[in-house]
């Protein structure tokens, strides 16, 4: 009962924050399009209609068509699926792996902490796009490979965040009390340390999600992410460059989609951070 009231209180705090609310609405819209793409999209995103090529925005194609006559609106909608899928899976994996490693390092300290922290510092000393690029170079281009690459590139930030929380939580009176009555370590971690990580990880996760949206688009743009003919926003942009002067709409709309999705997660993340008063290291 007490827990439900606590969650209710948290939700109402989010809803009272304007940034978080706007972000949440935008996120809901993007998810709505992505989930119901099959019903919303007026055309098939992959099949080409050469006779309809490079049509400007009209009532029939309200974002216009590309060089193969494919409806850009339909491709943008299906593109949301790939963008959200890659960002979601990579962020979640990074958050889970990062939290486990961070909490273990922070709680146990000593050699475990030194090993994890050193490893983390090494990963931090390679810029994250470059780290992801290195992994793509090994695994080859593709959607799944990109998920793995981004997950690894984003893990260090979660390790650093949760490690510092675990370090502080370890000293709290109720943790020491739990230790004194001989509670098992695993229970202390799960019940005393981990709950303190939830909110900061949630905030960091939302902001990382926004980065991941941009990164997915960038890698697809470089032909290292989602492969054609599957629609991805980044790839659509890079294809549209060739006929940019005659059909600028083909480059404008995918870009706006990337921008708004990333904006939505940034707004929501900022709102969450302010609502819960979480301090993140940058």
């Amino acid at each position, binding site marked *: 009962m007490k827990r439900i009231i606590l969650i209710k209180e948290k939700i109402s705090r989010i809803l009272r924050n304007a940034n978080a609310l706007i972000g949440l609405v935008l996120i809901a819209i993007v998810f709505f399009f992505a989930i119901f793409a099959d019903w919303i999209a007026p055309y098939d995103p992959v099949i080409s209609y050469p006779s309809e090529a490079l049509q400007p925005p009209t009532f029939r194609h309200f974002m216009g068509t590309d060089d193969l006559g494919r409806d850009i609106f339909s491709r943008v909608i299906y593109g949301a699926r790939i963008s959200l899928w890659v960002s979601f899976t990579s962020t979640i994996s990074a958050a889970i792996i990062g939290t486990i490693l961070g909490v273990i390092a922070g709680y146990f300290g000593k050699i475990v902490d030194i090993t994890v922290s050193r490893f983390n510092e090494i990963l931090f000393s390679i810029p994250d796009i470059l780290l992801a690029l290195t992994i793509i170079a090994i695994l080859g281009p593709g959607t799944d490979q990109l998920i793995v690459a981004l997950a690894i590139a984003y893990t260090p930030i979660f390790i650093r965040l949760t490690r510092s929380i675990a370090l502080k939580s370890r000293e709290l009176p109720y943790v020491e009390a739990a230790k004194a009555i001989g509670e098992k370590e695993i229970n202390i971690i799960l019940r005393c340390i981990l709950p303190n990580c939830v909110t900061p990880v949630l905030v960091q996760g939302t902001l990382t999600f926004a980065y991941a949206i941009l990164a997915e688009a960038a890698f697809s743009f470089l032909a290292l992410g989602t492969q054609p003919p599957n629609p991805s926003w980044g790839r659509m942009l890079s294809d549209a460059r060739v006929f940019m002067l005659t059909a600028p709409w083909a*480059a404008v709309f995918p870009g706006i989609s990337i921008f708004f999705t990333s904006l939505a997660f940034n707004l929501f993340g900022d709102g969450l951070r302010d609502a819960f008063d979480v301090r993140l290291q940058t």
Partner: protein
Amino acid sequence: MLRHIISTLISGCINLFFITLIVFSILHLLPGDPIVIMFGMWEQNPQQIEFLRHKYGFDQPIYIQYLNWLTQILSGNFGESIRYKEPVLKLILERLPATLWLILGSMMISLLISIPVGIMSASKPHSKRDYLGMLFALFGISTPAFWLGIMLILVFSLYLRILPAYGFVNPLESPIEGLKTLTLPSITLGVVLAGTVTRTVRSNMIEVLYSDYIKFARLKGMSERTVLYKHALKNALIPIITIVGIQTGILLGGAVVIEQIFGWPGIGRLILQAVYTRDYFLVQGTILIYAILFFLVNLTMDIIYAFIDPRIRYE
């Protein structure tokens, strides 16, 4: 202070050592025989492949391979590119100036935007101008750099035809042409970066403005202008040095995409071409150089920081 610098140096060198391990293992983590993967598109003959395997030492135990490779690296030999048939280090050094100019240009643009906007926001938190400044920062953070680049090319190169969309001219050789080619890529990367930096400038500035000595300056009856520019700014700018260090990492990563869009002959584009053509010796070399570059910038910033910040200087 010396102790601070030495400990940074040692820790950085340990990291670099591990990075060489990671970079070395790229070849050995490939799914399959690295020689076949690398030379597959050039050499079909099994005997030839066997010869190459021997030539590059792939028939030796892995630790010997690593030690040989490391010795070569330390003596400045980064191997030879398969595609270009030239030493990797030479290829990198040829492209280094273009990347450094791009980083310098975008850093200038980002600081020119973010310092005034950040101060404007911080001088009156939660006011209209603060929201305006933060809205700009939010837009900067959410904008895909490559899209902004394409839009700038569309407007300034294709429609207005006032700035080139492609290529690089060294500003030291031809200042006007050089600055022209530098403008669009620097703005693209600089504006996007300015988003993050503006936020940091604002939060540093606010922290300083609420400190005791600023309160004291106000109590003395100093004008808000003197407080803001004479006392607060000086201290708020110190962390900017750290920001510059962190931003270099983002810039080095961002350069990969921006160089590709603007046909910029830099290291970022070299890495991409190496990845596209599976030229793994070149991939190893460029990534290692990138990491070293990042390390050197951060080390320099650390040293400057130690000189400027009295708390470290008198440690």
